[in-house]
C-alpha cells in the first residue's frame, strides 16, 4: 500500500516541475485514457469486414468548392501536438478555407456534445468515440472518421534491471492507469497476442497516474504500464527508470495484428458538413499531414510553441514526449486498416466501449483518389475534374 504523498522523495526542482506539469499531464492522460490503444484481433477484424472494406475511388469532390469557415474542436495534448504548423498557418490566414480552432482542454465529452450541437464541423477525439457517436441512436449528428492522429502511446516502464522484454512480465505485477478505457483493452489484447493472457501477468489498475508514479518511487523493482506524457514525467521523478517495453511495437509484432494499429486518437467530421464542403475537409487533411511531417522534422521548434498555441501546457514536457506519442496522419484505406482493426479488438474486449457494434464501412471517410496530393486552388477552380486528373 502506498504511504506518503507522491512528492516527498522528489528533489526541489523536480517537485516544482511536477506541480507545473501535473496539470498538463493529467489533462493529456485523461484525453488518452479513453482512447488508449487497442489492436484489432485478426479474426474479429475479419468478422467486422463482412461490412465490405471501403476503397478510394476516382471521383469528383462533393459539395461547394468556395472557401468556407471550418470550426474545429481540439483536445489538448497528443492529438493536437502535431498540428502546430497548421494552427500557425491558419492563424496567419495562409489557408484557402479559414479554420477556426478551439481547444476544449481534455474534456472530450464536451467536444462530442458540441459536435452534436452543431458548434463544430471537425473534432479530434479518443479513438473509440467516433464509433460510439456513430452507434448512438439518440443523437442527431452523423459522423465520419477522417484521419488517425496518434498511434500507441503506452510504454512498459520499470526500475527492475531484469525486465527487458514483454515476456519478462510473466508472473509479475504491473500497475496500470486507464481501467475501463482503451489502455485496459489495448494491454489485454497485446498480452493475449503474445501468449501472456489468462492472468499470467497480474494487472493492477490504479485510478490516477499519480498513484502509479508513487508506487514507482516507493516500491522496489516496480513495473508499470503508462501512457505518454506520464512516462516522460516519471523519468524526471524516478531514478533508474527504464522503458524496455513499447506496447505499440508489441502490438505490431502480434501475429493477429494484420495491419491494425494501436490507435489512440482520431479526427471525426460532421457528415453533413463533409458532404457540403468536401474540399475544406480535404484541405484539412493535407494541412494536418504536412504539419505532422514538419513537427517530426523540427521537434525543437514545434515543441517550443505548444503553450503559445494552447495545444499543451508545457513546452519542455512536450519536447520529451513528442518522439513517443506516435504522431501520424493516416487517411483513406490505411486509416481503415488501422482503425477498424483497433475497433474490432476493443469490441472483442467490451462491446460497450465502441457503442455496441462495429461501425459500417460508411464510417470511414475515403477521399477521392489523388485528392490529398492535388493543389487545393486547382481543385477549387476545376470542380468538374476529379483530383486524380489534376494530379495527372
Amino acid at each position, binding site marked *: *500500500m*502506498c504511504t506518503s504523498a507522491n512528492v516527498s522523495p522528489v528533489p526541489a526542482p523536480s517537485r516544482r516541475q511536477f506541480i507545473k506539469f501535473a496539470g498538463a499531464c493529467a489533462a493529456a492522460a485523461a484525453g488518452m485514457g479513453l482512447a488508449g490503444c487497442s489492436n484489432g484481433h485478426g479474426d474479429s477484424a475479419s468478422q467486422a469486414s463482412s461490412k465490405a472494406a471501403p476503397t478510394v475511388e476516382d471521383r469528383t469532390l462533393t459539395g461547394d468548392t468556395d472557401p468556407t469557415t471550418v470550426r474545429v474542436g481540439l483536445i489538448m495534448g497528443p492529438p493536437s501536438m502535431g498540428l502546430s504548423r497548421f494552427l500557425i498557418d491558419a492563424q496567419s490566414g495562409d489557408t484557402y478555407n479559414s479554420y477556426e480552432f478551439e481547444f476544449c482542454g481534455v474534456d472530450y465529452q464536451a467536444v462530442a*456534445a458540441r459536435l452534436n450541437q452543431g458548434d463544430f464541423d471537425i473534432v479530434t477525439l479518443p479513438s473509440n468515440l467516433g464509433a*460510439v457517436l456513430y452507434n448512438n441512436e439518440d*443523437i*442527431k449528428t452523423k459522423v465520419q472518421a477522417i484521419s488517425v492522429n496518434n498511434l500507441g502511446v503506452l510504454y512498459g516502464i520499470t526500475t527492475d534491471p531484469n525486465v527487458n522484454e514483454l515476456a519478462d512480465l510473466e508472473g509479475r505485477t504491473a500497475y496500470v492507469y486507464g481501467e475501463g478505457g482503451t489502455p485496459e483493452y489495448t494491454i489485454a489484447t497485446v498480452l493475449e497476442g503474445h501468449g501472456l493472457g489468462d492472468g499470467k501477468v497480474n494487472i493492477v489498475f490504479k*485510478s490516477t497516474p499519480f498513484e502509479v508514479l508513487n508506487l514507482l518511487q516507493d516500491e522496489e523493482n516496480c513495473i508499470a504500464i503508462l501512457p505518454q506524457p506520464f512516462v516522460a514525467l516519471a523519468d524526471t521523478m524516478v531514478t533508474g527508470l527504464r522503458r524496455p517495453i513499447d506496447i505499440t511495437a508489441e502490438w505490431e509484432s502480434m501475429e493477429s495484428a494484420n495491419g491494425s494499429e494501436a490507435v489512440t486518437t482520431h479526427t471525426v467530421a460532421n457528415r453533413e458538413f463533409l458532404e457540403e464542403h468536401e474540399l475544406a475537409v480535404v484541405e484539412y487533411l493535407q494541412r494536418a499531414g504536412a504539419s505532422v511531417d514538419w513537427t517530426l522534422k523540427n521537434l525543437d521548434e514545434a515543441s517550443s510553441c505548444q503553450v503559445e498555441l494552447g495545444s499543451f501546457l508545457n513546452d519542455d514536457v512536450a519536447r520529451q514526449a513528442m518522439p513517443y506519442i506516435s504522431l501520424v496522419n493516416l487517411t483513406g484505406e490505411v486509416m481503415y486498416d488501422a482503425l477498424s482493426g483497433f475497433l474490432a479488438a476493443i469490441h472483442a474486449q467490451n462491446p*460497450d466501449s465502441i457503442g455496441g457494434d462495429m461501425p459500417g464501412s460508411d464510417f470511414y471517410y475515403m477521399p477521392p483518389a489523388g485528392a490529398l496530393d492535388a493543389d487545393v486552388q486547382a481543385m477549387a477552380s476545376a470542380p468538374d475534374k476529379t483530383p486524380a486528373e489534376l494530379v495527372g
Partner: protein
Amino acid sequence: MAEQDGVTCRMPFEDREPSSWSDAELRAFMRANAPEGADVDAMLPVVRSAIGQGADPRALAPMMRGAAASGADPERMLAMMQMGGASPQPANVGERPQGKAEPVSAAGRVRTWFSPERGKKALVILMWLAVWELADHLVDNRLVLTGPVRTLQALTEQIVKADFWLICAASFCRIAAGFILAFAGGILIAVAAHRVRLVRDLIEPIVGLLKTVPMVSFIIMLLIWVGNQALTIYLSFLIVIPLVYTNMYAGLEAVDLKMLEMACMCGMGRWRQFLYIYRPAFMPFLVSGCKVSLGMSWKSGIMAEVFGTPAPSIGKQMFAARTFLDTPSLFAWTAVVMLLSVVFEKAFMALLARAARPWGSAWARVGRTSRRAAWASRRNRSRPSSRRASRRAMATTMCSAA
C-alpha cells in the same frame, strides 16, 4: 402517599400517555408521589406545562420523591421547577378524554393523505417533469440532456441487468458505513470535547480544517493513501464527521444548567442525566445536523466512487456512462443515487426520531416496579448521610439564590 421503600400502588391511568391525563388524574398522581404537604394545585400548571414540553411525570416521580427525601420542602420544589423553565399554563389545555381524541386523529390522518396539499405537490412535480421533457426536446442534444422518458427507459435497462442490485448494495454499504462511523465518532468526540476543555481546544482546529479542505484534495490524497475501495468510506466519513461533531457539541452546550443542578441535587446518575437532560437538549441539534450530513455523505461518496471507480459501484457505472457518452445511463444512475439517498435518509431519520422521543414512558413501562425498587434500594444503600447533608446544603443555596 407513595411508599418510600419503592413499593407503590399503580394507578390505572398511568398506562396511558401523560398528555391524555385529566387534571384529576394528574392531581392524584402528584399526591401519590410528591412530598407530604405539597400544594398539588399550585404545582398542577407547572407539571402540565412540563408534560406539554415532552416531560413524563412517571419519570419525574422518583426524582420528586428523591428531592423530598433529601429534605427540599414543597415550596422550594415548586420554585425549582419554575426556575427550570416550566411556566404555568392554563391547566385545562391537555384536558381531553382519550376516547374522543383517537378517532379525531385517525380521521385527520386519512384526510391528510388525500389532502389538496398533496395534490398540489403532485401537480408541481408533474409540471417540472413536463418542463424537463420539454427541455429535452428543445435542447435536442442527447449528449447533453436526457428527458424523463428516456431516463426511465435507461433505468429499466439497468434494473434488469443481473448485477444491478449488487452494484446498488455495494455503494449503499460503503456510504452507510462511512456515515455511521462518522455519526458515532462525531458524537463521541463532541462528548469528550464537552467534558474536557483540552480535547475541545485540540479538536477545534482539525474540525475547521476538515470543513475547509476541498473535497477533491481529499480524494486525490486518499486515493494514494487508502486505495479506491476504501476511498468512499473515508470520504463520507471525513465530510460528515465535522457536521455531526459541530451540531452535537452545540447541542451539549445548549443543555439547561438549572436542570443539571436539579438533577444533581436529586442524585441522578451521569448516565441518567445524559439520557433525560442532555438528550432532549442535543437531539434537535443532532437531527438537523444529520439531515444535512446524510445528503452530504451520498454526494461525497458517489463523487469518490466516480474518481476511484471501485468495482462494483454506482460511481464506476457513472464513470463508464460518461466515458462512453451514454448520457441516458448517467441520468438513470443519478436517479438511482437520489432514490437510495432518500431511502437511507428516511430510515435513519426515523431511527433518530425514535431516539428523540421522550423516553420516560417507555422506561416506565418496562418493569417499573422492579426498577423503582432497585432505585430506592440503591439510594438507601449508597447514600451515606454526609452526602445527603451536602446535597441538602446545595439545594438550600440553590433555592435561596432563586
